[in-house]
């Protein structure tokens, strides 16, 4: 039997996607469907005194207009139900009459055509009372700041603390101290497919929403909560998903679609409802990567050992909590990097403001923390005159290390291996000088590394369900896998099938996948936190083992149903931060080569090497795709993507002014090096990969720019104007 894992199996969804057969939510049609449009607040902070829908209701083609008073339980949220489904008076939720960012939803218009819905939406009259707008998280933290929520006495959502060793006492032993203030930007997910979906009542009488998401069972739960129904009355199906990257971790159109269908159903109208957001609605309507301000003070002894790290950071959570508290945990962890530092003090805050909410995005707080940590290490090395790889050798964790959380790192720490491999392959330290360059071009080399947790962190409940049916007589002829894990475009379903075939010992063609429907599956958790291959693999292995046992006892079809629960993590101690934060990690190191045009500030990335320990690559070409994709997305984050928000209004809600990289902008070469050091907890030894190559990119690139120009940039994106300002203050008369 040849192995089904470790091979470049073609994506099982490839043919349907390239031929156009695969249907994405916006493609879903029904001859009698109705169209929905949403009236957004368009104001960053204002109370709705009243809504007059009289004129709108009389528009031709209008079927229904729904406002706050039509929502049974007018609240939702992934972790904290702090956001009204619809903002306005008359609902049962206190404070639901207040819009806290421009993308709050005010009213739903259901009509015969999209044009009719737009016309009626524009005829809705809202009587607003503007409230003070807070967009600076430092202002929002002040005790006398206006509160975003009347019920709260602080805008601080969460404060994480780490106190390990004695930071104050350690400074005097430091040969060098580096103190910097870093600022990281918002980032828009910019998935190909804007939010869209269709809803209807299925043949079993369930409200059914077909939509792109990351976690069918969570979406089902949130819909049921807001509609005051049981989860069994709600069904969520994911058709083809056009990218997610964390941007679909929080719901967007799910609840409002269900609400519209439920309302029509009660009126005896049984027609499906469809919504498609425009790109602008998508950019205004869903969350972004958190901007962070990070004040870092680190000190090292003359031999390079880092003695102390003190970090204070503030995340702009925007108007609602979303996953901010969890993202903050990860940023807290990342802010001191994969280093053994005896004295650590971290204070991390996530704060409400009237900006667009921040939430999950590939790396989940990791890129922000890692940018500060890696830049600090690179700067310390620079000051001490120690090579950056050597500096890391003297400080990196290894198996048995006890970190700032006073718990042993999960077995299988390979940060040293990835760093050595990356240094080796790129002939680090690079000393050769390129004499062929024009006088305005400066070349530079940068290095950084990171770790990334696999699975939910800090005590968040983890589980993953799978069911396997083995059909056949004497031989297994057909295997049906039931699994809820979302195929967001990352290739999850292909590796599910590979792992099932491997576990059953049958060809891949024998596997049939039933996925992405809450009615046919149980909870598998979300497609996030680099967890899906790891968790799904463990659940599939468990289910196949049970099914094979039943197969041996002649059960036909032999069924195995299994819920994998990994080892329990724990939450941060509120005073010291002590905890067992994560199940396990993946490890990565990168080397980036840049050329900087010092006259225009334009940066070209010539070459990237990314060395990633993924434990076991189930499908190596997909792993390479994840590495290249993460590098490209991080490239946009570091160099181009400049979300401009002024007084709570987003000024770059189009792709003509929010610039993501094109094929001509991405690094000219990305070398993805896959290492396979088994993780003891991973199925077939695998770890996750999706996020980790994102983390070291910004600090490695910025170190390369420093190497080229002698200037440290503590804030990005490195748009040409910022680079130019850094290199040549005289341009700006400074």
């Amino acid at each position, binding site marked *: 039997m040849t192995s089904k894992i470790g091979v470049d199996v073609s994506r099982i969804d490839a043919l349907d996607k390239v031929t156009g057969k695969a249907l994405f939510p916006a493609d879903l049609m029904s001859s009698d469907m109705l169209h929905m449009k949403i009236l957004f607040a368009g104001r960053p902070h204002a109370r709705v005194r009243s809504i007059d829908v009289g004129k709108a209701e009389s528009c031709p083609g209008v079927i229904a207009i729904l406002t706050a008073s039509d929502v049974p339980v007018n609240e939702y949220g992934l972790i904290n139900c702090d956001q009204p489904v619809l903002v306005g008076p008359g609902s049962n939720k206190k404070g639901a009459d207040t819009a806290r960012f421009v993308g709050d939803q005010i009213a739903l218009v259901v009509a015969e055509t999209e044009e009719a819905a737009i016309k009626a939406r524009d005829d809705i009259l809202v009587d607003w009372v503007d409230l003070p707008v807070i967009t600076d998280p430092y202002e929002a933290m002040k005790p006398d700041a206006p509160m975003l929520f009347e019920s709260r006495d602080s805008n601080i959502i969460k404060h994480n603390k780490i106190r390990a060793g004695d930071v104050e006492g350690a400074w005097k032993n430091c040969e060098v101290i580096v103190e910097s203030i870093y600022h990281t930007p918002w980032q828009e997910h910019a998935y190909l497919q804007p939010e869209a979906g269709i809803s209807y009542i299925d043949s079993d009488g369930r409200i059914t929403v077909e939509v792109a998401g990351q976690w069918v069972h969570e979406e089902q739960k949130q819909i049921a909560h807001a509609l005051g129904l049981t989860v069994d009355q709600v069904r969520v199906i994911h058709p083809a998903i056009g990218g997610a990257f964390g941007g679909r971790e929080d719901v967007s159109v799910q609840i409002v679609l269900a609400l519209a269908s439920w309302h029509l159903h009660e009126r005896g109208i049984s027609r499906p409802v469809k919504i498609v957001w425009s790109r602008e609605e998508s950019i205004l309507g869903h969350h972004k990567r958190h901007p962070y301000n990070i004040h870092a003070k680190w000190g090292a002894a003359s031999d390079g050992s880092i003695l102390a790290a003190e970090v204070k950071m503030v995340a702009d959570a925007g108007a609602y909590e979303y996953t901010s508290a969890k993202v903050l945990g990860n940023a807290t962890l990342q802010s001191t990097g994969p280093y053994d530092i005896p004295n650590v003090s971290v204070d991390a805050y996530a704060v409400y403001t009237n900006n667009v909410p921040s939430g999950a995005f590939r790396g989940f707080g990791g890129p922000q923390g890692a940018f500060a940590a890696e830049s600090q290490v690179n700067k310390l090395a620079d000051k001490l005159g120690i090579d950056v790889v050597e500096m890391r050798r003297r400080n990196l964790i290894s198996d048995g290390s006890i970190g700032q959380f006073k718990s042993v790192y999960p077995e299988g720490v390979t940060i040293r291996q990835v760093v050595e491999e990356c240094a080796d392959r790129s002939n680090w330290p690079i000393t050769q000088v390129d004499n062929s360059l024009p006088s305005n071009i400066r070349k530079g080399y940068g290095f950084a590394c990171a770790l990334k947790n696999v699975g939910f962190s800090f005590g968040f409940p983890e589980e993953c369900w799978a069911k396997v049916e083995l059909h056949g007589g004497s031989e297994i002829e057909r295997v049906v896998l039931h699994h809820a894990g979302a195929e967001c475009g990352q290739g999850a379903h292909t590796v599910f099938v590979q792992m099932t075939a491997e576990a059953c010992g049958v060809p891949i063609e024998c596997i049939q996948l039933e996925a992405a429907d809450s009615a046919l599956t149980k909870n598998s958790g979300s497609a996030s936190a680099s967890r899906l291959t790891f968790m799904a693999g463990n659940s599939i292995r468990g289910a196949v083992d049970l099914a094979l046992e039943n197969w041996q006892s002649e059960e036909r079809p032999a069924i195995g149903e299994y819920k994998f629960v990994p080892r329990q993590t724990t939450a941060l101690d509120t005073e010291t931060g002590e905890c067992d934060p994560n199940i396990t990690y993946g490890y990565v190191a990168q080397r980036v080569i840049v050329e900087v045009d010092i006259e225009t500030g*334009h940066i070209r990335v010539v070459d990237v090497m990314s060395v990633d320990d993924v434990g076991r690559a189930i499908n190596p070409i997909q792993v390479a795709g994840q590495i290249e994709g993460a590098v490209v997305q991080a490239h946009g984050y570091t160099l181009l993507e400049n979300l401009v928000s002024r007084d709570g209004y987003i*000024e*770059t809600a189009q792709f003509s*002014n929010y610039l993501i990289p094109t094929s001509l902008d991405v690094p000219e070469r990305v070398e993805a090096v896959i290492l396979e050091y088994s993780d003891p907890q991973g199925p077939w030894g695998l770890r996750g990969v999706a996020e980790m190559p994102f983390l070291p990119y910004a600090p490695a690139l910025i170190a390369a720019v420093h190497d080229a120009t002698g200037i440290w940039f503590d804030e990005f994106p490195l*748009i*040409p*104007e910022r680079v*130019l300002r850094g290199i040549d203050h005289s341009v700006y008369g400074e």
Partner: protein
Amino acid sequence: MKTFDYEAPVTIDQTITLMSKTRGKTLLLAGGTDLLVQLRYSNQDVDLVIDVKGIPELNQINYDEFSGLVIGAAAPCSQIYESAPVLENFPAIIDAATIIGGKAIQNRASFGGNLCNASPSGDAIGAMMSLGAICNVVGSEGVRNIPIEDFCIAPGKNALEKGEMLISIQIPSPRPNSGSHYLRFTPRAEMDIAVAGVGASIELDSDLNKILSARIALVAVAPTPVLATEVSESLVGQKTSGSLLEKAANIAKETISPITDVRGSASQRKHLIGVLTRRCLDIAVKRAVQVS
């Protein structure tokens, strides 16, 4: 987008008649890469859209030494950059045709549309202005020839009267020992709009070291693309040298007072005009030397 009527005439006369007959607002459509975006986002009320791509005169690209290059107003960039005489004689035109948008945009976007749209950042306008183009216009009153520097009068506003249309753009044959270049700066390598741009054409004497004539156009630093006559004057009669180009670059910087917007600040634009002018002149001079 409001509903509107659509016509696709095949002659200039039909088009002029349609324009004069229609009482409501009429807009001409070439590649549509500006127009469709504007119709979708600006709630413009338009009653009739006239597609001019089916008119043969508007799609031709002709060249002879005597009358120069004639680019039909609706000819797309891809047709322009594949044209042998353009490739041979008008490098600045090739530069502009190959940087507008990206490949897909270039298959639709016309130089006529770029010009009529009268954007301050029109790349084709900058290139054509540096080459001394003349705009051939027809209306119910007859024919007009408008020098390109007089064609754009404000952002989004051109010199066409109601009922007039652009037929073609005429560019004189290159003089002996001449070279041209168009260069712009964008943060993104494609699908982006110039923060600043410079078009230059340079004519050298027979010894190839003195500048006989020069035309320099500056883009995205004024309400319309502009001719920088002071820069040209500083070059004419001078021997080419690094310091001459540097001086010209400084003059270019001084002649403009750009604005700050979402694409760049005034000081960045001023700085870039200096860098781009020097680089653009340098290449135009090199090309002049090469062709001779």
